[in-house]
């Protein structure tokens, strides 16, 4: 079952409904599916939470994931784990879920669309200064762009844009290329190799979700703590 044709590079091109500027394509539909899955799954898992020593498998899994994300965030920031956790956690879970279901025939990862990854990157692009300003104040945050001297301001600005672009293109490129490789392999050697590539795809999807979340956290950490670290750096 082929939703996205081999010559179509993005699920954005699979338009299901269009009216005026409103366009419902495969990217959006699969994103809603993933969202619904995550929310319903969360409701089911957290319906009967146990605070004792015995707990359900799903609760155990979710606790492992949540504790892992919190631990990773905690490694980068000294305080405010709970402030960044919902944002970073949501990005991680959405990208992870989007990537992992690629082994289901007919499913197309929303993250293989540049629109989705751009949306994710733009969110990071705006979230980083928001957290930085919330933590340090506007002036202190803006001063970071002029450190160590004002000459570095354009480079800082370019860095902001380039890393946002890099975030979007890295995720999109990996997922899209993987899907195209699978499609080509299915056409060339329909047995064995596509299965191996699917397994590899699961690993790639996991790693990309991790990278996206970690980089987001690194950017947030650098925006909220760079000045403090500079001040406390031993001479």
């Amino acid at each position: 079952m082929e939703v996205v044709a081999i010559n179509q590079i993005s699920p954005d091109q699979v338009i299901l409904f269009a009216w005026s500027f409103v366009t419902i394509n495969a990217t959006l539909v699969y994103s809603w599916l993933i969202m619904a899955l995550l929310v319903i799954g969360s409701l089911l898992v957290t319906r009967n939470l146990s605070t004792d020593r015995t707990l359900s498998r799903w609760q155990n899994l979710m606790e492992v994931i949540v504790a892992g994300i919190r631990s990773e965030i905690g490694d980068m920031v000294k305080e405010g784990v709970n402030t960044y956790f919902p944002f970073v956690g949501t990005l991680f879970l959405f990208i992870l879920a989007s990537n992992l279901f690629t082994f289901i025939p007919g499913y197309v990862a929303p993250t293989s669309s540049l629109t989705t990854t751009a949306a994710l990157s733009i969110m990071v692009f705006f979230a980083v200064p928001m957290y930085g300003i919330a933590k340090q104040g506007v002036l202190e945050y803006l001063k970071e762009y002029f450190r160590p001297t004002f000459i570095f301001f354009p480079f800082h600005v370019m860095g902001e844009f380039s890393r946002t672009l890099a975030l979007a293109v890295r995720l999109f490129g990996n997922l899209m290329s993987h899907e195209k490789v699978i499609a080509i392999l299915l056409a060339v050697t329909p047995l064995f190799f596509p299965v191996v590539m699917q397994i590899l795809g699961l690993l790639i999807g996991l790693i990309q979700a991790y990278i996206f979340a970690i980089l987001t956290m690194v950017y947030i950490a650098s925006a909220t703590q760079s000045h403090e670290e500079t001040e406390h750096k031993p001479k």
Partner: protein
Amino acid sequence: MHIDWFVFFSQIVNLLILMFLLKKFLFGRIVGAMDAREAKIAARFAEAERSQEEAETAAAACERKLQDLEARHEEMLNQARRDAEAYRERLLEKAREEVDFLKNRWSEALRSERENFLQELRQLAGNQIYAITRRVLKDLAGLDLEERIVDVLLTRWVALDEEERRRFLSEGAEGQQITVSCAYEIPADIQRRFQESIVPYLPEDVEVAYERSEDVLSGWELRADGHKIAWSIKDYIDSLEERFYGALQEAAQERKA
């Protein structure tokens, strides 16, 4: 490769909604459950630590009690040993005293028995010697023992000078009595002969009385106011007794050896 701006903004809104829902239905609840569990575990750890401290305190108290008990036990044992030693000493002392008492009583009884025996022996020997002497004198010399004794007494009486005789009779005293004692009944003829022989030497107011006395062992005794003239076989008996006692001791020594 293009970006659909409607989808782009829709995705942003989608993600914001998803973030809100996940925060509400997943992150908050899971973190709350984990925190609650952590608090429970911390409380249990605290409880366990408290219990451990209590147990350690109780163990220390038990250890102290045990040591006290052991010390008291040791003290009681020592006290019991001392009491037993003292009781043993008392028993030994008591036994020693009883042994001494029994020994003394036995010695006393033995001595008394020996004296009784010797007394009886003396009595018996005196009587026998007296009887034998009488018979020997009668058979060999045709003499009477009592008469010979009277002769001896009279000879002694006669041999006394005036001064001694007066002293014997306690001169100046009136109504005196001379008592003649004998272990046997003095025959009347002997009494008469003695009377006839002694009266000439006596003042008129002095009476002569005769009595039988066990104290005078096989002999005669002339007694007046504390003075006496006597003959008996007592000296012979004493000599015999001494020899007899010496022979007994010698036999006892030989048996002991």
